[in-house]
């Protein structure tokens, strides 16, 4: 049984094929990257796995269970968390609130317990708070001093960090990262690579969309290449670097000898 199996998923927008029969699988504990030129369908693939987009053909299986027809929040409960390419943070919520919201489905407080506040509610809130702070501590002093500020006051890189932190708060089994290092300088990118490896070491499978070659080559165990909605290659970083079709997709046909 594969951990995540994408089985010939086809997604069209009108007449345009965003994904054309894409199949691959990911096993537990891997770091897998997905690359491809702009418009190749990488984010669409994430949206299909995540349940935000519905697709007509194919199937996504997570731990042997088909995710077709599941709503995004149900998929999140199964243990798939994600970040977004264009950060989607809760602007007018504080960072700490965001972190507590990330644990939403692990917490039990409902309407009646919120109204009556039995003792376990405050215990639960305190625990959620501490867990949120512990995750924020992964980013050193970037986010911790700002926990009571609104998320929309953060800098671009910090917003990306908070998105990762929020995803981690839900204790996922599979983490989908959509360009986690966009807008970061080389030093910060380095830190994110370390972090991604740490996340994997703690038992979370990581699936990344990335443009930064340093991240892809440095962190990933396996790479999948998409072009025009089709999977054109799959393999280890070294295999991908030498793959004819990948070079063609990125550089064009005329220059494919340039790499040799």
């Amino acid at each position: 049984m594969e951990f995540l199996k994408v089985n010939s998923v086809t997604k069209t927008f009108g007449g345009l094929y965003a994904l054309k029969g894409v199949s691959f699988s990911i096993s537990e504990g891997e770091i897998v990257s997905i690359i491809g030129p702009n418009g190749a369908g990488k984010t669409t693939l994430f949206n299909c796995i995540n349940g935000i987009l519905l697709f007509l053909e194919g199937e996504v299986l997570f731990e042997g269970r088909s995710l077709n027809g599941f709503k995004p929040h149900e998929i999140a409960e199964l243990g798939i968390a994600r970040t977004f390419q264009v950060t989607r943070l809760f602007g007018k919520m504080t960072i700490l609130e965001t972190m507590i919201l990330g644990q939403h489905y692990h917490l039990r407080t409902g309407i009646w317990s919120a109204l009556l506040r039995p003792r376990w509610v405050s215990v639960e809130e305190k625990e959620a708070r501490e867990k949120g702070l512990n995750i924020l501590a992964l980013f050193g002093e970037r986010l911790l001093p700002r926990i009571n500020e609104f998320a929309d006051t953060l800098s671009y890189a910090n917003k990306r960090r908070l998105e990762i932190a929020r995803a981690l708060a839900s204790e996922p089994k599979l983490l989908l990262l959509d360009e986690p290092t966009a807008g970061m300088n080389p030093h910060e990118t380095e830190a994110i690579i370390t972090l991604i490896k740490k996340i994997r070491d703690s038992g979370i499978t990581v699936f990344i969309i990335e443009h930064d070659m340093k991240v892809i080559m440095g962190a990933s165990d396996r790479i999948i290449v998409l072009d025009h909605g089709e999977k054109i290659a799959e393999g280890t970083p070294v295999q991908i670097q030498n793959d004819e079709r990948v070079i063609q997709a990125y550089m064009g046909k005329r220059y494919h000898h340039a790499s040799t």
Partner: protein
Amino acid sequence: MNLGSVIKKGIGWIIAHGLYILILGVFALLPFFLKNPYYIRILIFIGIYIILALSLNLINGYTGLLSIGHAAFYGIGAYSSALLTLRLGFPFLIALPASGMIAAIFGYLIGKPTLRLRGIFLTLCTLGFNIIFVLALVNWESLTRGPLGIAGIPLPKIFFHTFQRQEHYYYLIFFLVLFTVASIYQLIHSRFGNALLSIREEETAAEAVGVNTVHYKMAAFIISTFYAGIAGSFFAHYIRFISPDSFTFWESFTLLAMLAIGGQGNLVGPMIGAFLLIAIPEIFRFLADYRMIFYGLVLIFMMLFRREGLFRHRIYSLRIYPPWEKKEEAPQYLVRDKFLTDDPFKETTDGISKS
């Protein structure tokens, strides 16, 4: 714990909540000093509108939806309370929550098909519902007596006490407002409220994190209509005459204007908005019909200079910190003791370990 620390803690609590206690005390004692029933009547109306504005705030301010037909639920509460007491002889104490429930049932029926969709469907549907509701009231004469309205609604009676004087009503609405504020406060400062805020801010991300957005939007809508029904029930028993005119679209607009002026997404704004929009027309009564021009001007000014309303999205706290109590800050211990090393990511996986 020794006696000294208990006393210190107690004094600290009183200082911290001093402003709340003061405000509560002033309003609790107001009828003893305000002998003119006209003023008390205005205060009672402010109370009714505070409940309505706070309930609408739950949908529009916290959940980020736009309901523009809230007066319909207010009307449902008023009519069901009137009919329950007049036709079926229910006591007030049962009719009050029952009319809230009936309004909530209608809220469920409106919300069920529209809240699954994003966008303006809820807005359109609530607008249409308000218009249809008023038309139904006017035309369903066997039940509602049409435009004649329902008169002679019995005085509210709780156990053996019958409400007759203005002060009695004042304390009833005072209690209802307290109940509304306290319960909405509890709801908002919890996992439930957190989920509502996340839907307002970024619905897609909220879903991806595991928030069942449809469920929460429904819950917020139903709870909100429940409060509107309660306010309607009180209104019916206070005025003792209700007609379709009181629940038209204009009423909904007044509620929206209260949120626009006071600000939404917090508890203070709607209360201030309700206060201003009820008190100002009374103060400027001498201007007669020009009042509406003033009303419009205020709205235009608000839109030009402070679009979020007087109070913005934020939690306003009147808490005062006594000198020996520190204001809550970022927990420095985490930064200093455990994690502040040269490598910010060194040995810090305990936060994400799967326990």
